[in-house]
């Protein structure tokens, strides 16, 4: 007999009630039950990062997280980035710096970047690479993603200006 359970999930500050099966993953519930289709499932194994959402501020792979484990926690998806009709600084930076092409990995990349900047306002190049190393992109070659994160950090008023002097990285275009 199929078991169903009612979950209360708080997504982007909004409370939802959803009827789910206990084995359903968070990405399935977000996309197919609650309609938050920004988050994408690609590898389904927690490797590629496309399904990244934030749970209590921490980046997680929603494709391998049971939805039932996220009840009582705050969930943030890419739909929650823009606010009051304005794009988040990260979204603006990704637009300006060409941080996406097909866009399929982009929601996950944006959420990982948000978690990074929440944790570290002024990450170094190595810190960005290490933190974002779990997000895979087949289009951009990653440099534009890194530039966009640096740009967003600066536009949020926090970044160390010394970053552009890092050897081998051109930083902002003139």
């Amino acid at each position: 007999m199929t078991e169903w359970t009612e979950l209360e999930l708080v997504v982007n500050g909004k409370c939802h009630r959803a009827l789910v099966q206990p084995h359903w993953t968070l990405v399935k519930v977000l996309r197919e039950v609650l309609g938050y289709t920004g988050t994408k499932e690609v590898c389904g194994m927690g490797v590629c990062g496309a399904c990244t959402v934030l749970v209590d501020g921490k980046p997680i792979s929603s494709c391998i997280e049971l939805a039932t484990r996220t009840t009582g926690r705050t969930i943030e998806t890419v739909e929650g980035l823009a606010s009051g009709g304005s794009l988040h600084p990260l979204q603006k930076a990704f637009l300006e710096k060409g941080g996406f092409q097909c866009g399929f990995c982009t929601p996950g990349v944006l959420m990982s970047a948000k978690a990074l900047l929440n944790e570290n306002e002024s990450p170094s190049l190595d810190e960005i690479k290490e933190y974002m190393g779990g997000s895979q992109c087949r289009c951009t070659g990653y440099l534009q993603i890194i530039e966009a994160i640096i740009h967003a950090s600066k536009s949020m008023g926090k970044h160390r200006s010394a970053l552009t002097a890092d050897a081998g990285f051109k930083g902002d275009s003139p």
Partner: protein
Amino acid sequence: MVILMKQGVLAPDYLVDIQRNPELVNLKYSPKGVVVGASVTHRELEQWSGIKQRYVALATALRKVGNIRIRSVGTIGGNLAYGEPQCNLPTVLAALDSTAVISNGSEERVVPVLHFTKDIFDTELKPGELLKEIRIPEMPPRSDCEFIKFCSRTAEEKPAATVACWIQLEEEGLMCKAARLVVGAVGSRLFDCNTAAKHLLNTQLDDESELREVGEKAKNEIDPIDDLYGTTSYKREVCGELIVRAIIEAKERLIRKVVDHD
């Protein structure tokens, strides 16, 4: 586990989430060392200043586990209890002489991490038992540890070999007083290359040909298996080389520490 459920390999009737049990999320430092509750995540331990300062090899091993998302959710206890031979942490925890505390709710028993995984996905845990915490002893004076993870294919994949080398110098001078060499990921369990390690004692660890002989001896103390990450002969050769590099790196970092302190 969720991956196995999605693939239809596991279909449990009941699943109990114990991660938020307050007894399992302890992370505390005492004069005897560090106690890590089984539900502490990799990321929590990785960011804890007590680890970064005192256990450099463990901090290295933690950062090399999966990706930031895996480390945000995956727990130290879950990593060990899964019993997968290619995990990073058991190798370095064993080299640090750590122990695992197992509880059945009324009694506890302590098992060295070195012997916790008995075979592939087979650990010391019996039905009705839970891994409660890991105890990492305080680093003895004038000692250090190095961890190396070697991936034969891509960085995201499981390693072909993991090696951890712990060494301690005499109270004065640069003579090696004690050493542990642990190899993981190559076979079904951890391998304690203690015969090879004995050849490091009473030396200054500065003769590369002697260190290479130790690496050669260690090859005879491991039992690798053929798999996607390498053949048995490949893994033996890789381990011999990694052991030499781990000894050299641990020694050089230890000497810098000792010289700075003196």
